């Protein structure tokens, strides 16, 4: 049976050593000061930052904090700044870095919990409420009856925008977010675009304007495209922000 920790010993000698430098700080501990800590470990084939950090945690430093859940690029938990760029750590392979030196910082713009761990849940929930991230309809659905037919292409288009995993990377890449703390970001604007094209949602452009027609919404975006450049799901964020902006300008 395969075993990611137990590679054949003869092969191990061929592996290089890598250095992972991690931002350490526990804001809840009065004696803690922000500092960097460097760990040296052997790189294994196909190693991701998930594999590397779990190895550091379980064999070198059990006090290291980070946030992994699915470790498959699906849940959006493990966003962090990897050599200056916000990325999903679980999808980042260590062999992408030729010098074997990797520096990790917690994701900015979210409340820092400890080391690489940040609080994304509360912000994302409040964003979801702010843009009213749910279907608005006056229609009563009879769930025993046939569902409402939807054009296959339309369902596919909604799905394409529904793939956002709230990882927060678009916010960490966004200059507006640094200036306007309450900016809903590409994640929020993409969400409104998702509902705007969903035939189940009866909201008018005017109603969307009430939610995002200001500097904390669609007019806050400066089109620097950091969000789209870094989105791990390759969502067409700029196009969708522009789509919403065109709609909102008409209101």
């Amino acid at each position: 049976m395969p075993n990611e920790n137990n590679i054949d010993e003869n092969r191990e000698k061929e592996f290089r050593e890598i250095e992972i430098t991690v931002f350490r700080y526990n804001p809840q501990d009065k004696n803690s000061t922000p500092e960097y800590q460097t760990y040296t470990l052997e790189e294994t084939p196909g190693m991701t930052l998930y594999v590397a950090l779990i190895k550091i945690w379980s064999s070198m430093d059990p006090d290291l904090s980070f946030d992994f859940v699915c470790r498959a690029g699906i849940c959006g938990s493990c966003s962090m700044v990897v050599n200056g760029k916000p990325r999903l750590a679980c999808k980042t392979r260590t062999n992408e870095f030729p010098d074997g030196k990797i520096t990790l910082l917690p994701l900015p713009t979210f409340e820092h919990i400890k080391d690489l761990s940040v609080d994304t849940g509360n912000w994302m929930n409040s964003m979801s409420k702010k843009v009213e991230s749910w279907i608005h309809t006056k229609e009563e659905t009879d769930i025993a009856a046939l569902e409402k037919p939807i054009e296959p292409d339309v369902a596919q288009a909604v799905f394409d925008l529904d793939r956002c995993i709230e990882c927060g990377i678009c916010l960490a890449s966004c200059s507006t977010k640094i200036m306007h703390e309450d900016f809903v970001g590409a994640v929020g604007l993409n969400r409104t675009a998702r509902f705007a094209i969903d035939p189940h949602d009866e909201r008018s452009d005017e109603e969307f304007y009430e939610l995002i027609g200001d500097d904390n919404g669609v007019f806050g975006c400066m089109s620097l495209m950091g969000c789209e450049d870094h989105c791990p799901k390759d969502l067409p964020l700029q196009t969708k922000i522009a789509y919403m902006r065109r709609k909102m300008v008409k209101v």
Partner: protein
Amino acid sequence: MKIIYTDALIVGGGLAGLRSAIAAKDKGLDTIVLSMVPVKRSHSAAAQGGMQASLGNTVMGEGDNEDVHFSDTVKGSDWGCDQDVARMFVTTAPKAIRELAAWGVPWNRIGKGPRDVIMNGEKETIVEKDEAHGLINARDFGGTKKWRTCYTSDATGHTMLYAVANEALKRDVEIHDKKEAISIIHEYGVCAGVVVRDLINGDLIAYIAKGTMIATGGYGRIYKQSTNAIICKGIGIAMALETGIATLGNMEAVQFHPTPIVPSGILLTEGCRGDGGVLRDKDGYRFMPDYEPEKKELASRDVVSRRMIEHIRKGKGVKSPNGDHLWLDISILGREHIEKNLHDVQDISMTFNGIDPADEGEKGWMPVLPMQHYSMGGIRTKVNGESTTMKGLFCAGEASCWDLHGFNRLGGNSVSEAVVAGMIVGEYFAAYCEKTHLNANTFTIQNFLEAQEDYLKEILTYDGGVNIFDIKDRMRSIMQEKVGVFRNGKDLEDAVIELEELLKKTKEITVKRKTIGNNPELNEAYRVPKMLKLALCVAKGALERTESRGAHYREDHIKRDDVNWLKRTIATWTNPGDTMPTLSYEEIDISKMEMPPAFRGYGRKDSIILNPLSERRAKEIEKIKETLGNVDRFKIQEELLDFDLPKNYKRKNERVGVGYA
């Protein structure tokens, strides 16, 4: 003493927990959902391939209905499931999917006219009906007679979870994340709430409620190789076990999925095979038709996983530094199909293995091997989802042994169960909370809080020098090697002995930083003993069960034994100081079954010890049908097995071209 009061308390923010929260909130109850992680990051999000519901919209699903879904589910369970629960489930599933559609889940929809599909390795053209245009589509999955698995590409769990979470937010369900429930507060056999550890600052908080629901998912992480998210440690189930009152059912029933990718163990959906992908060996040979001529790659998961290991044991595996594996070939589906319907599979394969599965020929083959995937066992409940032995404690979803899945769950029935149980059990739970008065003694609450505080402080005083991670790794290896796809008495005995030693050894650890505040090592120090207790329930249950049923396969007892073993294993942890669970059994009554035990239609036909009662019940059923004469299927069903559902969930479901028939 920090105490938070509410009406309905739900531990776990995946599909089952959130859907239950909606049921509670819709009754006007104050509702809190506790979650270790932001709820949209729950493991429900990782479900890829789809949700089973017998809509019968696609031409390949024609003739599907509750009866066919029921029959597939019962066969899949190897007759271990509770047939009342299976009936409740299949009747509600079409409603669940239509509710989700109205909540915006962008289900893949049918386009009328011809389309190409891959079936049995060959391209074929099917023609969708005009009247089905725009209705919810379905794909093929293992162990099903019809194409019944509805999907949003291969991110079905994600879109479902987001829709349900957003509906919960809309209703102002309170969500408290980064909170881990570690102990159940109870008095006189009635659940009063839970003790919670705040994972940000380490604070202990008592959450007190009229009713408490556990919806914390499975325990896959007790295995070394698992597709499960790293939070799937079974802590919610373990704290129920630790009450000494609540019981666990069928913990040895653990599913191994045929196609996680090697070596990371990340799942590649059953949709790969449902859409026409095939398994190949080291010679590129498609071997499954030799073993399972009828269902081939799409027999139930337990059967396919065993056949794969069997084939590897014959020397047909592909050698690699990570051990032997087999190939999953979806390149035959074509790039367009893969990029649209198996998008995440392609992404996973490219990111973690550098293989583009859309590349033609062997270049695109992905290395796969069966690994732990699903926990059929869990907190044993009544049909209404309440613990059989602790009042006021409810359970839904993978954490439960409600018992929809028996000894093997069908693909596509997990997210489906999560939402459907959220509707059904959620409704019963809400009704319980409505009629119950908050009746917790503050003295009791304080005792439970202090007990946990003392326990955490005690852990910090341990000074044996052992690393908790070493104990955890050893446990996971034992489970992998000795309590896996193929099991035998000798290995299981060894496993039980060593797991018990490991449990004792958890008191010999040393936690480096001595704080009960934010302390990730302490988190592991209190979780691992809980995981070990579950591992012992699994191993001991597997050792005692001297038969093979569904995913539980004993090489020294290869037959399914309906005479002696048509029963559920019930585990309790009688005294806190015990180092071994106490097992007992709950009979499954053949005489009340709508579908008495028989051959499943796949797997080995010659290895069943049938109970004479099965034939008797089969004859009785024939007679009932004869006596009823020419009546509709609902009337027959009612005569064979009568079941209840809350709200209007028992209403007939409409189908295209069939109406409400």
